């Protein structure tokens, strides 16, 4: 397997994706990327900064916990998630209001799927039909409910989870990503990816191991 010290000789073929000489079927084994292992949070933060400065776009860091300052070092732009959750919350509040208004304050008939449903306005202890103060608890709860569901659903959608298969899972070292090791993975489809150059860069950043990941 490739190791940190020493550079491998660069074959005179297309430089981008060169299958490892040890793989059995060279034509079908495509290189997914290079995986570098780090031991400490400080190491991965400084390494990430340099990888980001080098201009790579298709790359990622993996850690057992969210390392403080790593997302900034990687240049990750703040996510749109909070806005989506706000939208979901507003929807929830509006739904709560419409629900209570329709059912308790009107006699309207609307088409609700397979049947017609009609509102039933009835007086309770002299309160007005459209008694907005009493609507507040249900509106609030539905706002919170849809915001929370939205937060989780949009989190999964944006992260493209569940994704039960990933090429990195085939790497044995990578099993420690949820334990105590930190990894940088630079994908081969990045325009700046050159097999040897990228390996050299990762090795120079203090990685304890740099390995290939096959797709």
């Amino acid at each position, binding site marked *: 397997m490739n190791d940190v010290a020493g550079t491998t000789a660069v074959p005179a073929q297309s430089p981008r994706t060169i299958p490892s000489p040890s793989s059995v079927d060279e034509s079908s084994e495509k290189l997914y990327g290079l995986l570098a292992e780090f031991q*400490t*949070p*400080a190491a991965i*933060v400084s390494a*990430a900064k340099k990888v980001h400065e080098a201009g790579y776009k298709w790359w*990622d860091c*993996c*850690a*057992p*916990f*969210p*390392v*403080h*300052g*790593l*997302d900034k070092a*990687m240049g*990750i732009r703040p*996510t749109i998630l*909070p806005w989506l*959750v706000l939208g979901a919350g507003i929807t929830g509040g509006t739904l709560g209001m419409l*629900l209570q208004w329709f*059912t*308790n304050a009107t006699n309207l008939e609307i088409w609700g799927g397979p*049947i017609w*449903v*009609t509102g*039933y306005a009835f007086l*309770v202890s002299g*309160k007005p039909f459209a*008694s907005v103060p*009493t609507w507040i*608890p*249900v509106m*609030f*709860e*539905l706002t*919170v*409910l849809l915001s*929370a*569901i939205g*937060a*989780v659903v949009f*989190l999964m959608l*944006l*992260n493209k*989870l*569940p*994704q*039960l298969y*990933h090429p*990195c*899972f085939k790497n044995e070292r990578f*099993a*420690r*990503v*949820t*334990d*105590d090791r930190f*990894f940088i993975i630079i994908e081969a489809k990045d325009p700046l990816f050159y097999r040897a150059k990228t390996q050299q860069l990762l090795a120079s950043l203090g990685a304890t191991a740099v390995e290939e990941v096959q797709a």
Partner: protein
Amino acid sequence: MTTLPLDNTFDDPTRRAPLVLNHDDFGSVTNTICGVNEAPKPPRAWYIAFGISVTFLMILGVLIGYLFWTGVGVWGNQNPAMWGFPIVNFVFWVGIGHAGTLISAILYLFRQKWRTAINRFAEAMTIFAVICAGMFPGIHVGRVWVSYWLFPIPNQMELWPQFRSPLLWDVFAVGTYFTVSLLFWYVGMIPDLATLRDRAKTKLKAISYGIFALGWRGSMRHWHRYERAYLLLAALATPLVLSVHSVVSFDFAVAQVPGWHTTIFPPYFVAGAIFSGFAMVMTLAIPARQWWGLKDFITLRHLETMNKIILVTGSMVGYAYIMEFFTAWYSGAMYESFAFVNRMFGQYAWAYWIMVSCNVFVPQLFWFKKARQSIAIMFVVCLLVNVGMWFERFVIIVTSLSQDYLPANWDYFHPTWVDLTMLAGSFGLFMTLFLLFIRYLPVIAIAEVKAIMPAANPHAHDHDKEASA
């Protein structure tokens, strides 16, 4: 690395107390916490506790069947105390659930790092408590086959729920609370389930944990969105927990019954809920840390901090008792004043004084450092607090109902054996779920504990310089 002191309960403002003892690196943390799930057999205490809990759970199931078959008359609910044990138990369990959300959400917003040792099983406790709570309104409706009338679903009478009623606000509040707590708990567990998946030795475990871990691989791009979602969930859960128990208190405060119709109820109930919830967290944490060797994570400092919170919320509850009494006297309203004098010296005076001694006097022991740091004392105090808080709900509901406006209606409420056994059975349900959780799911938030350790700080070399100075 500097050597960690074994006792982290010191109060030295010049240096931060370590929150994790005897574990310098992440690998040892993973090993210890995953060891709880990966042990081939749980400790013997688990089997004994599980046996007792499942027995009570089965008794509960049989009694629920008996209740559905025979009707609500098997309970002691009787004119004039039409609300009896079921609603007392409901409010009791919902209140207990609130501490879990407070630990997870509110302490997260306050950046209290010590929460990471207890937040996972406190959240689990919340979910199981809400399940126990939600069961009671579900089974107490009498005509269980039309309980779908509680929800805004079209029915044969073309009638909708009465949205002006707090009983309906409860449906939405407790339903939302359960859903949000479940989501918060599950999302928090995803990285830890991934840890268990990567360490799984059997195919079954790898697949089971793997499915629920959703393929989590610790990608920082994922962590970034995850952290935002976690913060949003915490920010949502905080007003939610305040609103849910306020809505539960509205069940009483919106009525005209003397002793109920007071504006102090929402904050008083919320403080009481946090009080009883923390006591339940402690009741679970103290044996768990002993039997599963988690004392390095749930340290004495954590327990002491929780005791301080119990002291604060207990004092708030005591203050609320005094203010209620003062308001009743100052108002000059005959029925209100009678209600409170009756609580202290009437037919349920025994329940009132159990409540006051357990809720107000007993937690005052925690002013003394020796009591705060003694495992035996804090365990007994927490048990008594839970007893006291159950009695608080009993006193509020039963004394006010059994002697309200019209003396011709006064009577003495007796619980039946079904009431008492169902209360015990609900503890069986709670403990069964909790013991299963300890056995199969990550009991401490592994990723979060790692994130608060000194080794997780990318600027760790500054730390070392300070420590050796």
